């Protein structure tokens, strides 16, 4: 059976080799799952800590200082607190749906970390359909939010769930359209392949290497706005809107289930930032046209020594954290949009703009 599954995994996956692939099939699987889970449980905490600190500094506060050095273990302490708290289920709630909802929201996030490349060979899988896989899986977590909103048997939760459903459906379209445009320019859906395509993309008529963010600055803007809306983060936090809906679909959740919803949000921030880094910001390339130390594969991005590999991972994580910083900055800087403004912006502004962007890039791709 192992051989058969392995053979299938080879046809389904493996465009380029991962560092986590060993001779033993089971060892490879264990290492890859550990890699994805490790990413999912560690990097979002770093992002969350940064949000605490950055928001505090922007508001002239100090943020967490007591737990651990510079308050860096605050979220770990929060996690321990969440585990200890009483798990309250409202009497009128639909118990099973109520209990399953945070899991349905959380698991897709874990699955996406399987395809996100952090550096040369540092990824669990390089699927031929990597980008499509990430977008398809991420569309499932809406289900968890709707389940939570409905099963709580609370009108604030229901309205929050409704708003979340409408918002996530609306902003998924521009998100996917912007991502498709990148795939058209890169001529591949593999996330590693897109990074490679950026390292070899030259401005037409010259030999200046640029990332996709330059020819597709509109697409990057659309993707960024849509990603913020998909995460329901301020200024797009209408589904939660604490001043009018208590806490939206999360109102009735306590303890570990609430923590799971929270982790879904932080994980989503990392996932969306990582996708933007891979699609638009050159992946683990430090600057356009600059090869990593000790790498001699295509565009100076592959076949690296340990130094180049470490540098690549560091660069990717640095770029991800820079994008998370911008997200936090926008959260602090802008007020919340009204529900109708939010829907109009998606359907009347972003979707036509994304379609136009797709058409222009497709024509340019054929012409040049």
């Amino acid at each position: 059976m192992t051989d058969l599954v392995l053979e299938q995994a080879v046809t389904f996956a493996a465009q380029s080799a991962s560092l986590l692939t060993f001779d033993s099939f089971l060892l490879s699987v264990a290492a890859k799952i550990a890699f994805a889970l490790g990413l999912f449980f560690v990097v979002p905490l770093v992002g969350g800590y940064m949000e605490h600190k950055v928001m505090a500094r922007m508001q002239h506060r100090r943020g967490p200082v007591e737990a651990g050095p510079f308050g860096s273990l605050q979220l770990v302490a929060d996690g321990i607190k969440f585990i200890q708290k009483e798990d309250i289920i409202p009497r009128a709630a639909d118990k099973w749906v109520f209990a399953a909802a945070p899991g349905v929201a959380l698991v897709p996030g874990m699955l996406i970390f399987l395809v996100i490349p952090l550096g040369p060979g540092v990824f669990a899988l390089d699927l031929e359909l990597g980008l499509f896989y990430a977008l398809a899986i991420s569309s499932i977590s809406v289900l968890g939010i709707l389940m939570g909103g409905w099963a709580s048997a609370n009108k604030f939760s229901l309205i929050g769930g409704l708003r979340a459903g409408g918002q996530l459906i609306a902003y998924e379209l521009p998100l996917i359209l912007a991502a498709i445009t990148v795939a058209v320019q890169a001529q591949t859906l593999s996330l590693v392949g897109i990074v490679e395509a950026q390292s070899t993309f030259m401005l037409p008529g010259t030999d200046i290497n640029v990332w996709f963010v330059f020819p597709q600055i509109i697409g990057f803007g659309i993707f960024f706005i849509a990603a913020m809306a998909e995460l329901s983060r301020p200024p797009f936090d209408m589904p939660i809107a604490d001043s009018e809906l208590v806490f939206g679909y999360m109102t009735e959740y306590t303890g570990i289930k609430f923590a799971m919803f929270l982790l879904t949000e932080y994980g989503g921030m990392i996932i969306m930032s990582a996708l933007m880094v891979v699609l638009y910001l050159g992946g683990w390339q430090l600057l356009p046209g600059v090869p990593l130390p000790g790498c001699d594969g295509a565009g100076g991005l592959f076949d690296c020594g340990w130094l180049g590999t470490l540098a690549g991972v560091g660069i990717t994580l640095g770029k991800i954290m820079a994008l998370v910083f911008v997200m936090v900055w926008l959260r602090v800087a802008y007020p919340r949009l009204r529900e109708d403004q939010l829907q109009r912006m998606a359907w009347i502004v972003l979707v036509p703009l994304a379609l136009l962007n797709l058409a222009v890039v497709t024509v340019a791709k054929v012409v040049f």
Partner: protein
Amino acid sequence: MTGHDAVFLLVALFTGGAALLTVTSKNLFHAALFLAATLAGIAGVFLVLRADFLALVQLVVYVGAVAVLFLFGLMVTRAPIGREALDGQNRGLALAVSGTLFVVLSGLIIQSFGGVRAAEVTGPGIREIGIAIFAHWVLPFELLSMLLLAALIGAILLARRESGESGEESVERRIDFGDEPSTEAGAQALPAADTAGELPAGEPVAGGER
């Protein structure tokens, strides 16, 4: 029985069980959730049969969009929140239709693919699928999308008619990007009498209610 068969059997049992629960569930919302599980299970079946692209399409279209739309629709309508139950009355008819469909489809599938071993199937890559759709079959593909578009526009038109007045555009205050007051008082301040003359006689005036 190989490992492949065992995995297929597990996925098929999951899908079948979820499908059975979809139709036997008394709660509408639960039925929609089981439907989502069934559709996800079908994606799993595609994956076992190495149709990876089809599996992802199944996930994004049916689980991510259709099932979500069902749930969304249920939440807007008066479906009971919580644990109340509903029951349909069309058991016999549903059984007859689905039974016939099952027999016809399984007959066709066995006739077409009866001799092929599932473990030997290898699907085409995404490149081949793309070239097939957008080069060789582009005309049928575009025709199908036109059909979908027509259905979409028809649905919007029908939905609008039902809420408006005999197909005529009702007077409503459009709230722009924060330019105008969005309060209910602002909407009610719109004089209803102005619009009454333009509407056909006997129609209730909806302008003030919006």
